[in-house]
């Protein structure tokens, strides 16, 4: 992908980010922090590329360590978010 395409995508994504975050209800700001944490682990893509590549053992081990760290975050982040969200309930089944 050439630079202008990437830039266009980035600029539009910034607008989307701005609007989508402002539309999050304040009651869910804590889950928002948790889930952005989880999705920012998409850098695992870079980690996988490093870990999968032959050639440099050092790069491979750096990559593997990054994969492990990012995985903690991905699994931890999504599941703690899910745990939190499962607690938000409507009136009906109050104690």
């Amino acid at each position, binding site marked *: 992908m050439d630079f202008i395409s990437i830039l266009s995508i980035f600029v539009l994504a910034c607008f989307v980010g701005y609007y989508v975050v402002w539309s999050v209800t304040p009651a869910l700001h804590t889950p928002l922090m948790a*889930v952005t944490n989880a999705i920012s682990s998409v850098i695992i*893509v870079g980690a996988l590329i*490093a*870990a999968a590549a032959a050639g440099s053992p050092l790069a*491979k081990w*750096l990559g593997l360590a990054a994969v492990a760290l990012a*995985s903690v975050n991905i699994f931890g982040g999504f599941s703690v978010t899910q745990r*939190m969200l499962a607690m938000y309930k409507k009136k009906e089944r109050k*104690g």
Partner: protein
Amino acid sequence: MTLPLLLAAGGAAAATPDWVRLAYLVAGICFVLALRGLSSPASSRRGNAYGMAGMGIAVVTTLVTHDLASLPEILVAILLGGAIGLTVARRIAMTAMPQLVAAFHSLVGLAAVLVAAAAFVNPGAFGLLDAGGQILTVSRIEMALGAAIGAITFSGSVIAFAKLNGSMSGAPILLPARHLINLGTIAAIIAMTIAFALSGAGGAGESPLFWIILVAAFAVGFLLIIPIGGADMPVVVSMLNSYSGWAAAAMGFTLGNTAMIITGALVGASGAILSYIMCRAMNRSFISVIAGGFGQDGGGGGDKGPALDRPYKAGSADDAAFLLGQADKVIIVPGYGMAVAQAQHVLREMTDLLKGKGVEVKFAIHPVAGRMPGHMNVLLAEANVPYDEVFELEDINSEFAQADVAFVIGANDVTNPAAKTDKSSPIYGMPVLDVEKARTTLFIKRSMGGAGYAGVENELFYKDKTMMLLADAKKMVEEIVKALD
């Protein structure tokens, strides 16, 4: 830098097959939908599923399209990390959310550092080499910046975690000439990044500058956060979150990866907006937070703050139970103290009893009650309080005038009228909940001496229609429940 130079950056990635790029786009869109779901509790669970799907798509696509010299090791790394993550996520107490977010955060930062280092060591695998076998200039810049931001995020988040977790004192540690030291180090990092970018002559892996930048960045993260008070940590965590988003976007530029670019923009926006919301609700400038020195102790400990010998009306659990039981309408205002005492469950029991007696009960949440955005909402949700009984400041503030009892549990600053009247107060201008408009105001706190996060005296404690319930929040509410039964 001229456009053609920048253009070269994506050269390697242009060879990516179309379906792969489509898959990364889909992953990015899934992340957008994940955040979009959070616009209401009802759609939020579906949103989280989108997020997981997006991550799955991104990971699988990457695995399938790269040569898999070390698949077993990769799977082990994922399983290991995943197991740790799941265990932590299941075990963690809801009151420890601020720490957990900071901790997870440091991991993202460290992972970014490792990826940048791996790219530096083995640039060929990322397609970052030019015709002469050297790392592209633009990739050098992105690599150095990615590593530096990652390192700052890592060491900053570690400090934030330690302060929030109580592993180190929340008090700001003020080095002499700290602003000078910080600015100097940051300037040095920028200078070294430029030198590194222009050091095209050395072959890959040869320049020690990269590693020096990394070490300096770790130090900056440490130095920047140390002087900031424990209670300002949520703003810091959110700010670091934003930075790490922009770092991910930068890496997305390098790899021509749409999923990373979109994620970066989302996370960057989210962190920035949450920092902004917190600062606005505290009526403080972002700069003053970052400059540090505010917020003496994250725990709102009992031995600081004003301890005048002014007369006040103290009450017992029985008095409170009587007042609550007689009321038609009660508004509960939870604050940081409720989180500390873990009083949310017994509080729910209390409201159930009151509702059983025909009392109308509502919860009023100030945007910065507690220590992170949405903190109180999560705790109340944990205790099974339905979210349609929980109201934001703007929606409920006019109702205090009709309430018989405002029941303030472990909140202080967010009710302090000085924010409306006293121009010299540090919280002046912050919107507050009008609890004093209720017929009676009850305050639960442990002692008259203990101040809130901002460390200022609350005049309401000494008003005639205020009754102070001095005890740990959980114990006090348990006794009220007994008295109501």
